[in-house]
């Protein structure tokens, strides 16, 4: 097996599971240490630089980091990374002085952005301080896109949106809100140096079932309905509500219904409960608000009387694995079921829609009739038109929109400076020893045994009365500290120097999780079975040294390493060292051009 190379960022980045899983590669352990230290503003700025919306994401992120968290593999639950981000946002001081200053003068390049959601705002934030003249277009009256229109206020207060959107618009840009772009051709003709399309996936899928037309007054498209609630156009719903769909939008719809007069609210979903697209914690919140989730039921017809919806028919199905191993829903043979209701919310998915994009202007479309977009440069087939967020590759989430935004900003910057957008500098990285004394480290290497703390919530009876009352209270600083101490500091890496090792076995003996083995080198498949604890998690790499004095090699399975530093403490020769890995993502600006 190949010796592990410490001289590229790839190996050690992957060890930091949370950061690796985050589309924007936010340095999670770094900001968690700052939170533990009470340095909330610093923690906020680490986030702001990387993911642009710490306060918003600290309440709403899909948290790809948490299922990846190493803590979840050594005990039951991962660190509450997302809600710790909120601790930083809630407790920070005024950080306005730490934001980039608006550019002194224009660099002469004009960039238009369609849609003022998270993707466009990220591009705007990266480019505005560089002197780009930015114009943001959005059909809504306020900037924020789906963050403002689709996420209910009881999950995300408007003040947080105003604050974080304001940090970006305050960098100096022209806002043209309430202005919907209805022709790309016309916009192209206005001579912008670059156009960024971050218009989201604004079309909610409908269900074309018998009765849909007749009962239309009481059947609503989920995201449109949520947006109407957000902007105050809808304030009531019927007493009995059925939400169709199993994603996070369905969860927002049912919980919003409970606050607008829905007493008997049900979610009814085609798939099994486990396979629902909604995040586990969102399902949990819905169930907590007395909303039953009925699974394996496929809607077949809307029933109505005198133009008024009376209910929905469902076929009961079950899951079956077919010969090719695919999961299929087949009729269960049980009789169809009818559920009475006054209103139905359809939340069965959303899709991109570009009716304002003319054909024949150089934009190529793929087999699904979506614009062709390069997955790395975010560039379309019109060289100065770039995409990001849900508009690029269909519905994802805010943190992906941010990641796209950073990538698109690099491309736009390079494009406007006449450089090749495909030549993208790799991220910068560093490894710095954390040794402070013989057995002292700059980080807290004593592993906390605490189990994951729950975020406190307001009383149910109170929150169900007000659609704008935030449910979660967030961790207080004391609980935030305790939760932060659960972090294993995976960015503080175990770095091994072959030439110093005397093979005394001290590290192998002390390791609390049996990560380290000195053994004869063979191929990886065989090595994995011969370690002190078999390395069964194939997603996690093996760290392999060069040949040592006795001809053996050191093999470390990264899977459940606690980063406690005991290997380095018990090493007599300093062959092991704990070194902090930092990854500097390439963002638009001088760095992306010089490196």
């Amino acid at each position, binding site marked *: 097996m190949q010796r592990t190379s410490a001289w590229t960022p790839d190996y050690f980045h992957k060890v930091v599971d949370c950061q690796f899983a985050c589309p924007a590669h936010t340095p999670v352990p770094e900001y968690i240490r700052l939170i533990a230290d009470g340095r909330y503003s610093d923690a906020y700025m680490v986030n702001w630089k990387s993911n642009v919306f710490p306060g918003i994401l600290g309440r709403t992120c899909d948290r790809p980091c948490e299922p990846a968290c190493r803590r979840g593999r050594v005990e039951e639950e991962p660190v509450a990374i997302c809600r710790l981000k909120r601790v930083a946002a809630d407790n920070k001081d005024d950080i306005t002085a730490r934001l980039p200053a608006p550019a002194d003068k224009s660099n002469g390049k004009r960039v238009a952005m369609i849609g003022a959601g998270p993707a466009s705002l990220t591009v705007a934030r990266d480019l505005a301080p560089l002197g780009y003249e930015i114009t943001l277009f959005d059909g809504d009256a306020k900037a924020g896109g789906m963050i403002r229109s689709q996420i209910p206020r009881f999950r995300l207060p408007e003040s947080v949106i105003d604050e974080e959107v304001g940090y970006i618009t305050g960098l100096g840009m022209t806002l043209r809100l309430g202005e919907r772009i209805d022709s790309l051709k016309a916009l192209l003709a206005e001579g912008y140096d670059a156009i960024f399309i971050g218009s989201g996936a604004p079309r909610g899928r409908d269900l074309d079932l018998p009765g849909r037309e007749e009962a239309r007054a009481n059947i609503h498209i989920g995201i449109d309905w949520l947006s109407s609630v957000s902007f105050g156009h809808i304030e009531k719903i019927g007493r009995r509500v059925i939400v169709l769909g199993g994603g996070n939008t369905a969860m927002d719809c049912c919980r919003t219904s409970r606050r607008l007069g829905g007493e008997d609210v049900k979610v009814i979903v085609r798939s099994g409960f486990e396979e629902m697209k909604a995040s586990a914690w969102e399902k949990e919140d819905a169930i907590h608000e007395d909303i039953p989730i009925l699974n394996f039921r496929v809607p077949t017809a809307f029933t109505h009387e005198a133009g008024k919806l009376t209910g929905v028919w469902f076929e009961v199905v079950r899951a079956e694995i077919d010969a090719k191993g695919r999961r299929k829903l087949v009729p269960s043979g049980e009789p169809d079921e009818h559920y009475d209701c006054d209103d139905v919310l359809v939340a069965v998915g959303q899709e991109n829609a570009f009716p304002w994009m003319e054909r024949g202007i150089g934009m190529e479309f793929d087999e699904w009739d979506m614009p062709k977009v390069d997955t790395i440069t975010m560039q379309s087939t019109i060289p100065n038109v770039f995409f990001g967020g849900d508009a690029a590759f269909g519905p994802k989430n805010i943190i992906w929109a941010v990641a796209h935004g950073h990538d698109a900003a690099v491309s736009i910057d390079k494009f406007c400076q006449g450089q090749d957008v495909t030549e993208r500098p790799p991220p910068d990285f560093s490894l710095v020893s954390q040794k402070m004394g013989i057995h002292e480290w700059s980080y807290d290497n004593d592993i906390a045994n605490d189990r994951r703390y729950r975020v406190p919530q307001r009383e149910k009876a109170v929150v169900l009365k007000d659609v704008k009352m935030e449910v979660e209270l967030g961790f207080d600083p004391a609980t935030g500290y305790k939760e932060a101490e659960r972090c294993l500091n995976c960015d503080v890496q175990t770095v091994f120097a072959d030439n110093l090792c005397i093979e*005394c076995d*001290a590290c192998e*003996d*002390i390791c609390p999780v*049996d990560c380290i083995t000195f053994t004869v080198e063979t191929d990886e498949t065989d090595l994995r079975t011969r370690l002190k604890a078999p390395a069964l998690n194939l997603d996690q790499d093996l760290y392999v040294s060069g040949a040592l004095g006795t001809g053996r090699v050191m093999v470390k399975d990264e899977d459940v390493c606690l980063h406690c530093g005991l290997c380095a403490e018990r090493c007599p020769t300093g062959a092991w060292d704990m070194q902090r890995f930092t990854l500097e993502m390439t963002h638009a600006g001088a760095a992306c051009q010089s490196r």
Partner: protein
Amino acid sequence: MTYILKPQLHHPNLPTNARGFTRRDYEGSVSTLCAGCGHDSISSAIIQAAFELNLPPHRIAKLSGIGCSSKTPDYFMGASHGFNTVHGRMPSVLTGANLANKDLIYLGVSGDGDSASIGLGQFAHAVRRGVNMLYIVENNGVYGLTKGQFSATSDKGSKSKKGVVNHDAGIDLVGLALQLGATYVGRSFSGDKAQLVPLIKAGLAHKGAAFIDVISPCVQFNNHVGSTKSFDYVREHNEAVNRLDLIPAHASIKVDYAPGETVMVTQHDGSVLSLHKLAELYDPSDRAAALGFLQSRQAQGEIVTGLLYVDPEAGDLHDALDTVATPLNALDGAALVPGAKALDAINASLR
């Protein structure tokens, strides 16, 4: 010194033994010895052996004297009994404990200073009496706690860290144990757990005086060129005479080696020692031959390791004294004070 406690979190796939314990359950406090100390590897081997033998922690007594080695019982089997005696007096305290309660498993842990200098007489008498115990000497050939003087097991001609040549003859505890009548004698190296763990297991299972000399490099004061107890020197001069596997009583016996290369030795408790021969002519049942072999190899600068001698039929001190089956500390008043009638009977028999 490590200041933090060893994290409680362990590998999710860590196996448990028949008692439901993981290996981690046989650990003790975090070592305060120097980083890299060979003694820590021996502690780790003891932990592994106790785990594999399914030993009940509360039935083990760990005894030690004074010195780096004698600190180590704190670093393994934290749930067992422990006694840290006066310097060099561990053997007599262990003998007394064993006389009082023969049902515990006795593990004496000592060092070259504790056993070959101040405690040499104590060591000799505990061994010759056949006290049922496993006596481990963690032998680094140097006085580490007092900053690196030669110890009684330092080889003549070896160099100290400062470059001084040792002019005294070294005591070979293995040779001594053989002469004194130990019924299980082995030597191993802290850096070779594959050899050491089975030796400890078989030693714990052995009835009678079992002795293992474990060469354990002192990284701080005796791991330099010119030392005969350094990692490099021991690795270069290690001559293992056999590889041992302990097969517990009632387990099915499987032999991996070709016939003729493996000797099976059944012990008192029914466990079987499967000895894979490495040195062609070595016979671990012949005490006198073992002594000769050791001395000839030692003269050539080789360090002979492995199971050097075993008498599977050995008895112990209690057999010699013909004590009752019940441990003496469990005898009640009625058994200890049989009354006037019994006394009269005894007196009558002596008239």
